[in-house]
């Protein structure tokens, strides 16, 4: 089969690309749209480094085919900050040293933003379980969780 032409919206922008039916959304974001923020850590949906939002749902982009996103809306890490302002989560992660090597960071930020949109007041346990599919090998998660709980509190206060 020849390549499939896909039209979608990424971070609010209309995009189009050609893909082999076997290519994943992750492959397409990275190799065709130059959006390399989503990472392939495992290719099997076990690590969450490829997390994006697809039509409002948090998903692993390695478990979605490029062909499947025709007409859909995708949000990636690249769309998280507005203009020159970082999202509060991004600011807090830097401040709290909630990242070391940073490879899992985009996935965790995308996943956490999705959590706080759904539940602005999560408990520590709820945050940990929501992020169970986002592996981090460097930090032991401690500073990540603290950054998230603190940001959630800030965001609740600001709203």
């Amino acid at each position, binding site marked *: 089969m020849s390549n499939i032409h896909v039209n979608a919206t990424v971070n609010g922008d209309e995009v189009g690309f050609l893909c082999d*039916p076997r290519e994943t959304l992750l492959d397409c974001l990275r190799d065709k749209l130059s959006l390399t923020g989503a990472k392939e850590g495992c290719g*099997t*949906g*076990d690590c969450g480094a490829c*997390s994006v939002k697809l039509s409002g749902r948090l998903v*692993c982009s390695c478990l979605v085919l490029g062909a*499947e996103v025709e007409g859909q809306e995708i949000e990636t890490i690249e769309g998280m900050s507005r203009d020159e302002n970082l999202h509060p989560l991004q600011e807090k992660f830097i401040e709290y040293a909630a990242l070391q090597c940073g490879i899992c960071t985009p996935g965790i930020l995308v*996943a956490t933003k999705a959590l706080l949109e759904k539940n602005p007041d999560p408990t520590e346990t709820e945050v940990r379980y*929501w992020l*169970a599919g986002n592996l981090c090998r460097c930090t032991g998660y401690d500073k990540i969780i603290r950054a998230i709980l603190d940001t959630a509190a800030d965001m609740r206060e600001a709203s």
Partner: protein
Amino acid sequence: MQYYTPKSFSEAIEISMEAKGITRFLAGGTDVLVQLRADIVTPDVLIDIKKIPEVGDILQNSDGSWRIGAAVPGAQLNEHKDLKAQWPGVVEAMDLIGSTQVQGRATLVGNLCNGSPAADSVPALIAAGASVTVVSVNGSREVLVEDIPHSPGKTVLEKGELISAVNLPARNTNGGDAYLRLIPRTEMDIAVVGCAVNLSVKEGIVSDARISLGAVTAKVTLVKEAADAIIGTTLDDKALTALSLAASAACKPINDKRGTIEYRTHVAGVLAKRAAQIAYKRARS
């Protein structure tokens, strides 16, 4: 690989009847894509069912029963307050699969059709007495969930057949269901043992029960002896012990990288007790 997006079940059936080579239906893709990436199964024909009307709907019929479309992801089930209130065991079983991200895509039908003996949602569906609607060139028919698995990795479905929906019975007011599994970490693992219990309680006594075990037999089945052990009891310690023994006795597990025969057999008994206690509590509240 040829990728198709039929707009109706009859179109999907037609494509699959004519397909040459390995054919897979695609709903959530959380098994199909993993197998594709790992070179375990490279479909020649991939039929994406998500553009078919109603596959993404959860409907409650007038008699209280439920119809869950084949492409409803676990996250959507978990967000449905009424379904979750009535069938918490089914919803929590599905919810345990993978991560939040996997939940955004994975479906009950996909979990069933992947044919893994360790599938989490299957014991819960069987315990609930669920059925699936199978569509083919011959029309549609209802099949009990426990009659779908054939052997590890295989279902009884033939070429040109696919499942359009999962049907859950109406929940009786004095009933409750629960699903537990044992995994080494807190999330993300394949069940080493899974146990689903669906029971009804009348004046403190278990009036009927359906118990199903996962990951301990070649295909997920109903364990009648385990149910018999608690029917007519108040789920006292004696009944729980009998339940535990019956559950362990029903196991025919394997040794593999996730657990030993001895371990699975023992834990099946432990989980059966614990799941029964949760279902009992839910039935009475």
